[in-house]
């Protein structure tokens, strides 16, 4: 049994839906967490050992759970939030929990690139900690942060392939159920091509955007 083009379109739609919604939420979680991870560390502008020592291990733990396990492990939480534990929307909850901390780490790494001299100059000007974050740290690393978001987006596309396990659908699910389990080589090839195009497109878009913002 071959897949129909409607099924492919549906799968692409599901993937884009899962990736974009979870990307938005993951960024909303990851960006502030990444900033917190940087500014609360020792010697930084809002040094706070308590926050740092709580946040850091939590992110590490979440990052170390393989997605397929996270997917089923947090089913009760998923049900609590979206009212169901199966389907495309249900897959979004674990996707956010998976990519939020990942994004936080990436943003943290970007922000750590900022030359300490820039922060010193900001402090010398009498900038408040919030001003330092929003007028110095983030603008200086925006190019790098965009590349981080690009990387996280591609990671999300990979993760959505496993969303089939809880009936999330999407391109990856199509490839497994039709291509692999029903021996449809055409389906495998088609889904791989779609994924390659999608990933390439996102990466190129991210690169162009980052280059435009970066001046160095």
């Amino acid at each position, binding site marked *: 049994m071959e897949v129909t083009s409607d099924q492919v379109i549906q799968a692409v739609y599901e993937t884009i839906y899962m990736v974009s919604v979870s990307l938005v939420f993951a960024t909303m979680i990851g960006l502030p967490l990444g900033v917190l991870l940087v500014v609360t560390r020792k010697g930084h502008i809002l040094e706070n050992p308590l926050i740092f020592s709580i946040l850091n291990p939590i992110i590490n733990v979440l990052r170390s759970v393989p997605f397929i396990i996270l997917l089923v492990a947090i089913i009760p939480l998923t049900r609590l939030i979206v009212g169901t534990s199966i389907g495309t929307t249900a897959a979004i909850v674990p996707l956010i929990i998976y990519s939020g901390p990942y994004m936080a780490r990436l943003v943290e790494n970007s922000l750590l690139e900022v030359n300490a*001299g820039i922060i010193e100059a900001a402090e010398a000007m009498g900038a*408040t900690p919030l001003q330092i974050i929003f007028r110095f740290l983030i603008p200086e690393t925006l190019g790098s942060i965009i590349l981080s978001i690009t990387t996280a987006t591609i990671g999300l596309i990979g993760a959505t392939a496993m969303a089939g396990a809880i009936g999330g659908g999407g391109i990856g699910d199509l490839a497994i159920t039709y291509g692999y389990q029903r021996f449809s080589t055409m389906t495998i090839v088609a889904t791989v091509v779609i994924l390659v195009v999608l990933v390439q497109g996102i990466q190129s878009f991210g690169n162009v955007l980052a280059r435009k913002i970066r001046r160095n």
Partner: protein
Amino acid sequence: MGSVQAIREETHESLPSNGKKIEPIESMIEFHEVHKSYESGGATIEALKGVTLNVHRGDIFGVIGLSGAGKSTLLRTVNRLEQPTSGRVIVDGNDLSVLSVKHLRSLKKNIGMIFQQFNLLSTKTVFENVAMPLRLGTTSHKEIQERVGELLSFVGLTEKAQSYPNQLSGGQKQRVGIARALATNPSILLSDEATSALDPQTTASILELLTRVNEEYNVTILMITHEMNVIKEVCNRVAVMEQGAVVEQGNVLEVFANPQTETARHFVKSVVRDDIPSSVYKLLEANQGRSKILHIRFIGESSGQPMLSQVAKRFASDVHVLFGNITELQGVPFGNLIVELQGSEREIARAYQYILQQNVTVKEIS
């Protein structure tokens, strides 16, 4: 502006190395017994060991020392980038240790700072970099346009307003740094090795600009450097730091003319060569006491060369200049001469006595 000039002149007048302390005119930055220590790898490092200094309004005050001497830490206590462990820093009458964080931030607007690595925002244009300190406050859009335009013209970068830092040379970047530091119209400028990353020619132009900042904008400058040349070019007063302590301080001329410590002598030597060339020693050996070789240091025009011609005229003794080095410090000639007196023993002795009576420092080389 007139007052700054006056202070400068007064400082000049009290120069002659009579060792008298210049009366404080008006303090801008006072360090009182400032200590700073911090833990590093289990050991306590004392970065500052009780520094007491007084920077006057209108000064270009230089702090010189080798790396690790604590000068960078000292500079940063002025805008509280470093918190002293003990001691007081008083800036323009404000004791920093009792100020609230909020007061401290507003005080920082009165203190500009420039850096060795410029520390400009790479993603912002020259204009935006200079405007940044104003954008942090409540300055109106129109005022920002005017102020930044004025500053860019002052530092000679009007054309570069829309360029990005990576399109500028090192000297231009430092000019942007200076314009940015002046944006909030501060009365103090802190300079952290501002010319150390620049070539000699660019260094000279930046130092010239700093002198203009001091004179035209009435800004008191506290600069740290490891280059004695910088001190020589622009500073009127200097402090020499070593291992967290000020080992010598005073008027630039005094310190250059009469360095008291080994460190100070070392720095002075780096710009004013006064070591005896080996050829002089060879000559000395060859002469076997038939002539006298003197090392003469002089300050001001009244001494030095005219004195030598007097010696030649008054005594039957020839004067050969073996080595000479004359430099100008704050408009005053300052030099080293190594001369050989030739003639009869008696005439040499008389000439020597005459030279000793002049307003110069004489040392016989033997």
